[in-house]
């Protein structure tokens, strides 16, 4: 794609917002119906501690974000599998440990404060071509995964026991879902920031959840809302020169609020 090579900063930013706006709500939809959305918040913060670690040892921060959050995901999954730990609890514990470690790493390395803040708040203007390829490839991979195993994923989201009794490897698919969310979060870290990535993960899906009883429609709506929030929010942030994560999440919230007010599910 020769045009991409010629893209300017703004175009790259908008391109990134497009990809992030699809990627996060996609995994977010499953997280919302499985009531495991809080995992996304946990993973984002754990990823940030990886960033801090990378900065401390002068190694690529995203690589360490990836290593930290995948390790944490596997731990959380294992805890949930053995039924010894609720997801909520393992996330809460790893979440605060991760933040403590992140702060510790930043404290030790001192000089990297502003770069670290970039990962905390997100700075989409620093998007590189490489970032775009990563996001695009991940989106393609996840779309393939969700399309191939939509039936299994839908069934186990509805009722894990019934799905397992029907021969679906619920444990394996839980891990894959968790990893797909983790990858989406890590890949979006630079654009949206660790503090706000959760907003794009859950809010479009939560808004869509308010509006329909059809899971496929819910996913479609959540992608649409994600796109609007992300592209709109990032365009706006460039315009008024504020961190992009903030405007994206505020826009996502407005959409959620409207969906909530007009929800068919209101009356229970």
């Amino acid at each position: 794609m020769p045009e991409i090579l010629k893209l300017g900063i703004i175009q790259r930013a908008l391109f990134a917002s497009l990809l992030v706006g699809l990627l996060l709500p996609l995994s977010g939809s499953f997280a919302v119906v499985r009531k495991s959305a809080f995992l996304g918040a946990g993973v984002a913060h754990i990823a940030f501690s990886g960033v801090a670690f990378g900065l401390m040892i002068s190694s690529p921060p995203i690589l360490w974000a990836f290593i930290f959050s995948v390790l944490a995901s596997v731990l959380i999954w294992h805890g949930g599998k053995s039924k010894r730990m609720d997801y909520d609890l393992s996330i809460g514990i790893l979440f605060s440990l991760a933040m403590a470690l992140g702060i510790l790493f930043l404290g030790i390395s001192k000089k990297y404060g502003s770069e670290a803040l970039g990962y905390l708040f997100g700075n989409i203007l620093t998007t590189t071509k490489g970032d775009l390829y990563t996001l695009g490839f991940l989106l393609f991979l996840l779309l393939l995964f969700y399309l191939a195993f939509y039936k299994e994923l839908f069934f186990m989201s509805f009722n894990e026991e019934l799905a397992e009794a029907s021969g679906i490897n619920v444990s394996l698919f839980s891990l894959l879902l968790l990893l797909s969310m983790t990858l989406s979060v890590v890949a979006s870290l630079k654009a949206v920031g660790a503090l706000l990535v959760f907003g794009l993960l859950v809010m479009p899906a939560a808004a869509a959840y308010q509006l329909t009883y059809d899971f496929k429609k819910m996913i479609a709506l959540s992608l649409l809302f994600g796109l609007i929030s992300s592209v709109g929010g990032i365009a706006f942030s460039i315009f008024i020169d504020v961190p992009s994560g903030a405007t994206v999440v505020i826009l996502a919230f407005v959409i959620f609020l409207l969906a909530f007010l007009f929800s068919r599910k209101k009356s229970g």
Partner: protein
Amino acid sequence: MKIIEVKDVSLGYNGKAVVEGLSFDVEEKDFWAIVGPNGTGKTTLIKAILGLIKPLKGRILVFGCPVQRVCKHRKMIGYVPQMEKFDPNFPARVMDVVLTGSYNKLGAFKMPGKKERERALELLRWLGMEELADHPIGKLSGGQQRKALLARALFAEPRALILDEPTSGVDIVSQEKLIELIEKVYREKGLPVLFVTHNVNPILHLITNAVLLGFGRHAAGNREILFDKKILREIYGKEIEIVSREGKKYIITGDYHHA
């Protein structure tokens, strides 16, 4: 042919046994009632047969295959779990849930189509809930949800049915219909049925065998054990009366008798 073999099995949680040393074989055309007071391990037994939990001791074979191993037998069992209310807001309609019964036969990327929808509608019609096909599953009553789950279980043309209190929370007319449907499937296909219930009277005419689970004791065998007052007293810790009306037997508690 033996469909399910339970061999000297102990079941429980965290190493603590709920059921100990239980054995029985389910053959084709058997209709097993599984009865006993709350908390004696009926659901636990069913989960073990489905391979959802591991026995503490002993072996369970389904279609000759040990349940702990991953094999295709699970796909051959139609299962209706014990009553649990679904999340009222979950984005799935009755049709979506019934269609999950078709998933085993569809490969990756494939979605159920017109043929599957028609079959699902037909099953729903049979259960008198065709017009609820597009209704959110979580917004149905408990009894309607049970029926949707039965339709789901029957969709895949199972080779055995395992039903955990399928009639609890179902009104008496629907209960009759539900049992009629189960009877039809049972007789037409000659498949074995395991039926957990607290009230055997509506299915007495179908029952061929029974497992009675009590606290620290159990009995498994042919249907006659259901009418053995000594065994019933041991299982329930209370006198159980057997009354005969119009040539049929009914099992009732002693209290009712004295009232």
